[in-house]
């Protein structure tokens, strides 16, 4: 039994109709959920491409937004935390660069969360009219944040070159931390996307979470300023270890990377991912009825 309603190009005539059999039953768990998801990978790619293609259409300065946002955040946080509050940087690293290295994963996380959790509502007309595994919608939308992150990374290199503090060999670990940031965003995004579809209250909750998270995560300050007794609590937020990881790999290891906290953050992320996925899957069948 091949669970698929997708019309594939079928020139060889190898897969003929009697192999395609679909059973729809009340309350039936889709046993081939993940195979079905893979079947729709082209749609996933197309939707991600669409979101990227239209992100900066009908804007005046276009992609420059992906540069301006982190640049301004960097300037403000450097002034407030570095100058006015006089907080120390991570080791030898210039404060400005340390902030930028934290802004990068934070924007990756917050853009993914913000856009992804709203994606079911913004794709409502598609969801009401066509079948596809609903998981595709938030995840494809989240891909946009990766593109923005790449642009910010380019900005980081420019600023690092100007300040004479370019990364060393540790940068080869950066891709792993990018994946980590994405996974950390995935769980909460799926949870919020499912909840936003059912209860629009969460449209107001998400921006609040993003705003709140920016202060409990070390975006504008270094993790080293957090007192030792609060470290465990502080590291329950996966973004703390994500940002520390980015700083470690981008700032020549000036920021300390504590394996225990990294493991804790990863554990919390995977727990959130499990929670997000199970909530999403339990309500996704009713999306067409509630959107």
């Amino acid at each position, binding site marked *: 039994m091949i669970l*698929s309603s997708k*019309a594939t190009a079928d020139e060889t005539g190898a897969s003929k109709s009697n192999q*395609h059999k679909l059973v729809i039953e009340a309350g039936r768990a889709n046993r081939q959920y993940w195979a079905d998801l893979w079947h729709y990978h082209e749609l996933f790619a197309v939707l991600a491409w*669409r979101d990227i293609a239209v992100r900066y259409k*009908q804007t005046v300065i276009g992609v420059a937004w992906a540069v301006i946002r982190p640049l301004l955040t960097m300037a403000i946080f450097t002034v407030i935390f570095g100058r006015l509050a006089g907080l120390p940087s991570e080791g030898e690293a210039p404060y400005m660069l340390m902030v930028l290295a934290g802004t990068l994963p934070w924007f990756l996380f917050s853009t993914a969360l913000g856009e992804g959790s709203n994606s079911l509502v913004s794709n409502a007309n598609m969801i009401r009219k066509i079948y596809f595994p609903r998981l595709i919608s938030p995840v494809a939308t989240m891909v946009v944040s990766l593109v923005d992150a790449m642009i910010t990374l380019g900005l980081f290199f420019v600023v690092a070159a100007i300040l004479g503090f370019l990364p060393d060999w540790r940068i080869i670990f950066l891709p792993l931390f990018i994946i980590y940031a994405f996974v950390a965003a995935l769980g909460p995004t799926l949870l919020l996307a499912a909840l936003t579809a059912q209860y629009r209250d969460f449209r107001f909750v998400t921006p609040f979470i993003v705003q709140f998270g920016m202060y409990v995560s070390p975006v504008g300050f270094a993790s080293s300023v957090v007192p030792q007794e609060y470290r465990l609590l502080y590291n329950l937020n996966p973004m703390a270890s994500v940002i520390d990881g980015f700083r470690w790999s981008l700032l020549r290891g000036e920021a300390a990377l504590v394996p225990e906290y990294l493991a804790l953050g990863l554990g919390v992320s995977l727990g959130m991912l499990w929670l997000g996925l199970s909530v999403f899957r339990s309500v996704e069948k009713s999306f*067409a*009825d509630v959107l």
Partner: protein
Amino acid sequence: MSEQNAIKIEGLGKKYLIGHNLDGGRPKTFREALTKGFKSALTSVRNMAQLRQLVAGDEIEEFWALKDVDLEIKRGDAVGIIGRNGAGKSTLLKVLSRITEPTAGRIEITGRVASLLEVGTGFHPELTGRENIFLNGAILGMSRKEIQRKIDRIIDFAGVEKFIDTPVKRYSSGMYVRLAFSVAAHLDPEILIVDEVLAVGDAAFQRKCHALMRELANSGKTVLFVSHNLRSLRELCRTGVLLEQGQVTGVGPIEQIIDRYQQTAADVQSVARLGAIEAWVKAEGREDGSNVFRLSLTARRRVSLSELCLIVTGKDEERLYILNQQNSFEMPYDLGPVSLQLRIDQTGPALVEGSYMVGVYLKADGKPYEDLAIARLEVPARKGFQTFYPPEVRGVVEPEFAVTVAAALEKQ
């Protein structure tokens, strides 16, 4: 044995929950508003904790949009689904397309399905025509390779070569629809599910679409077609399925089912439910060629009525004219349990004697509702009107006209 069936449906049911507000839903005192708000918030939070759907209202009613539906559709058959508004046609298509899950029952589908419940699903206005072909194609289930192979044919069929690299927001609505339909038309499924999307585009394009649908049906594909347009159902389908109040009440040759449908539509109750609104219509044709309509609307809760039209239709449910009530009174109108009664006197081109249907289109709380067959309009032969021709050949209207012989060339 099931090899013969493209679709087999057993005991299918789909339940929705609808909330109603009692006493017009509006609290009378501040205290009442507080307790009521608190109570409903409590229920909502309880529902949310269990990830259940939110339903607003004091009283929650279960509504079976489909109930105990058994149906077998043979491979290669072209099936038309007929039924009045709210009979469950769209719900059936949605369940078959896997958009929504059934509450009960089982469906077996053998073969690749493509469902077309809307033209241009997912079209993005900022993207060009070409980009939208890839987007829409992927949404409908075509692979990238397949689209690349067919793109020239798609563009050609739509007739938009010149604008293919222009964002579709600059398209006229006709071009937009043609492009969208063209993508869908080049799907190559074994089972095609179509919901009234043919009611778009100009006449020439509609003919093109009909021809394509017929070709599909003749080439052994299974086609499932929902339409209000009885003429296209007659043209395209071999088998008819009659749905009434969520149940299948007839399956058979299309002509027979259409006749059955028209009979059931003929014993109209003059009353129809349009969302929360109950509409009562009475129509009377006069011998002087004018028509009088009486319309009464009530709602069990407070509803904002922003549009209201009477629709007069002919034998094939084709629209003859509408009587728009936009300027009759101030819109939006706050409709409640007290009925709104209107009398509409219509003069102008007289209808040829015969039987017509009167329906209502309205927009309540921003949502459109329509029922084309609420009351009958019997038009009698006009007094003092002389003609040799029987009503069948005289078309639909009889306008006033005068003839003057402008020039007569004498034959030499």
